């Protein structure tokens, strides 16, 4: 397998996902690194950072502290700032260097919690996994810390899972998703993670159904299914949202059967996040497209949500070959994929910017998933 990545940027890593999931919760988030990892997150993976008073810090890890295993300095710095800010919780997030020196994040978190009496979580993120893993790890760690006992189930109540700027940017998609369900009479208990509060996190265990809008949401939903016996379904609302509404209605009535797409001899390829791509495919085929559509997943994959002939992208070489294979006449994906096309191509390319790929390079053109503009854009695809 080639590890060479010539044209595409590295995608958003696990520590960005972890920080993103915790961003709105009033905690103090410390990324244990020298500066670049925090810079990845604040500079490129967190569109909410400008003007924000969320407490996200870099530990300023230095070579000698790493070599000597000097965790005490880190602990003292965190405690000093926690006394100043009095956060709801503290999250210590890992990066590649702590991985190599074997930093004990859980142990450090326990020590900080004992000394400050502030709930503290330590996340052993390493910069070797995609953002979805970090979103899930941070959310689950906080649930374990903050949710003392599962609540009584409320019939018909739902949670939305996996809404972070890394998948949906900050152009109103989060509010649109919530509005879709609330305005159609659903009791929305908790929306993860944009706008999430500790109280909302705690009441989320009363839901009867979790709706994962992204693959990161699927990862959280699987934990909640196992721990709190809340079933889940995976769909991203698109266009006028009718497909998602219908699916949720059926799921609450235990009648939901996931859509089985036509993928044989696919002529259309959707490259990107798994659940969004699946939902796009379902929308297009249920709106009458008679073309088979394949999904190429760039990030974390849930095997149960793969259709036949879907592709898990392992590296850039594989992706380059796929895009230029001649099989697809239409490709949908982040604009930075265009760097992989052969110079002369007849492929119709539809741009779907994704923060976890191109960040600020293209986020000003982000789609509003539930909008007339989105419907028009979807109608154009053939």
């Amino acid at each position, binding site marked *: 397998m080639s590890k*060479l990545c*010539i044209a595409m940027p590295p995608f958003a890593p696990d520590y960005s996902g972890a920080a993103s999931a915790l961003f709105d919760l009033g905690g103090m988030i410390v990324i244990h690194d020298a500066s670049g990892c925090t810079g990845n997150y*604040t500079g*490129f993976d967190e569109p909410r950072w400008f003007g924000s008073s969320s407490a*996200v810090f870099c530990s300023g890890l230095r070579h000698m502290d790493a070599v000597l295993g000097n965790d005490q300095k880190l602990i003292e710095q965190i405690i000093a700032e926690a006394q100043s800010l009095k956060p709801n919780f503290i999250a210590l997030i890992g*990066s590649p260097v702590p991985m190599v020196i074997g930093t004990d994040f859980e142990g450090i978190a326990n020590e900080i919690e004992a000394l400050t009496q502030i709930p503290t979580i330590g996340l052993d993120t390493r910069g070797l996994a995609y953002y979805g893993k970090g979103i899930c790890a941070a959310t689950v760690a906080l649930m374990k810390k903050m949710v003392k006992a599962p609540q009584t189930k409320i019939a018909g109540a739902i949670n939305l899972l996996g809404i972070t700027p890394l998948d949906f940017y900050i152009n109103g998609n989060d509010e649109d998703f919530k509005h879709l369900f609330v305005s159609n009479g659903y009791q929305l208990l908790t929306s993860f993670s944009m706008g999430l509060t500790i109280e909302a996190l705690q009441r989320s265990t009363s839901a009867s159904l979790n709706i994962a809008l992204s693959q990161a949401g699927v990862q959280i939903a699987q934990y909640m299914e196992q721990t709190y016996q809340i079933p889940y379904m995976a769909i991203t609302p698109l266009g006028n949202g009718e497909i998602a509404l219908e699916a949720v209605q059926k799921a609450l009535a235990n009648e939901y059967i996931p859509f089985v797409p036509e993928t044989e001899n696919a002529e259309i390829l959707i490259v990107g996040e798994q659940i969004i791509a699946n939902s796009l495919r379902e929308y297009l085929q249920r709106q009458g497209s008679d073309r088979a559509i394949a999904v190429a997943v760039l990030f974390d994959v849930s095997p149960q949500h793969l259709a036949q002939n879907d592709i898990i992208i392992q590296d850039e070489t594989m992706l380059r070959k796929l895009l230029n294979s001649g099989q697809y006449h239409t490709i949908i994906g982040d604009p930075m994929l265009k760097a992989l096309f052969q110079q002369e191509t007849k492929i119709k390319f539809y741009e779907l910017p994704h923060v976890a790929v191109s960040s600020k390079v293209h986020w000003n053109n982000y789609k509003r998933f539930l909008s007339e503009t989105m419907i028009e854009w979807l109608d154009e695809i053939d």
Partner: protein
Amino acid sequence: MLNNQLSCCQFGSTLHYVSPAHGGWGVIRIAALVPESYQLFVSPFACGRHGALGGAVNGIKDRISYVYIDESDIVSGGYEDLIPEAVDELLAFLPKKPKVLLIFVSCLDDLLGTDHVQLNKRLAEKYPEIKFRSCHMNPFKMDTKFPPGVTLQNNIYSLLNKSETYENSINLIGNHAPIDQSCELYNIMATNNYQVKHITDFERFEDFQTMAKSQLNLLLSPVAQYAAEEMVKNLSIAYMPAYNTYDVEEISDFYAQLAEKLHISINISEYELAAKAKIKEALTVIDDYPIAIDYQAVKKPFTLARALHNYGFNVALIMTDGTNSIERDAYEWVLSQPKIRVVNALHPDLVKFENRGQHCLCIGFDCGYATGSNKIVDLLEDESLFGFYGIEKLMTDMISAFENETSVKELIEGAGLVI
């Protein structure tokens, strides 16, 4: 007025606040100055994200690629073998081979003991037409003698081959952006039949080699001091510190030293008078309006504060990440000034935004962001400014910033900052 009661943000060992205005050229933009060069980063994929996207924002991503390493590569020791394999694959793919391949490793490499000498030897044997350099993107060595900026400057200028002959030219090193052609330095040197060279003058690697023929390196930033010292040893090119300053006397002293060093005649009176006139004009407009200075805007913020104060301006705030050995006297002077507040630009308490809503004219957008001011001079690392011209341009920009509102968000976005 700025609130002098604020006592937060002391220096010392703290967590770091990473403002949206934090950043600069980053190693990728600096390395991309080498003509006909290509960059290959070898690191966990996460380490490369900010550089790749920063490269895309700044239009140089097509000269940067990555080799992703994972835990098994680190544990198995297969990491070193990956690099030549990746170089083979990359060079086979690129339509035009670069003249220089800069192989960047990340912080991890400092913990692994990679033999870069052997690695580069192997690569040079296989590709004799290409120069290879191992470069370090290792910010966790920022507190050592060899942080990434210093080693990168040395790697860049180590590409020059010793010349047998020398020309009437001087080099500017340590400044990433070229000095504006309106600067008097060019006229002064031309009058004395000297050419002024900077790395941005060259599109071809071959032409870049002519910097090795210069008689003197003007060192515009301490980040290139080690490179300058190595060039004394390896290229027999002397160097002279010429850190950018906006102090009339310091600039006069610099030109006197330069004249002595090169045995040339320099007359600065015309330029000095023009700079002083501009200072007077700016002071008339800005009067005693508080001024804030940002360490990312200028390399010597304390010196600028002292100069502005001596010209009659009301300097109220300096935001910096620490003291700087090249302006110790100015730093000591600032500490003796009770009306000038010095704030740690990385202190975590900045997230409380306690400096917001305070009126000031900001030189640089890091203090612009912290204060929320809409009077901001768009300046990063003294870019394009030098000498008396630098004073004139800064004064012009201060007047413009004072009279015209600007958006700090737009300035930050336009700067293409890379960490």
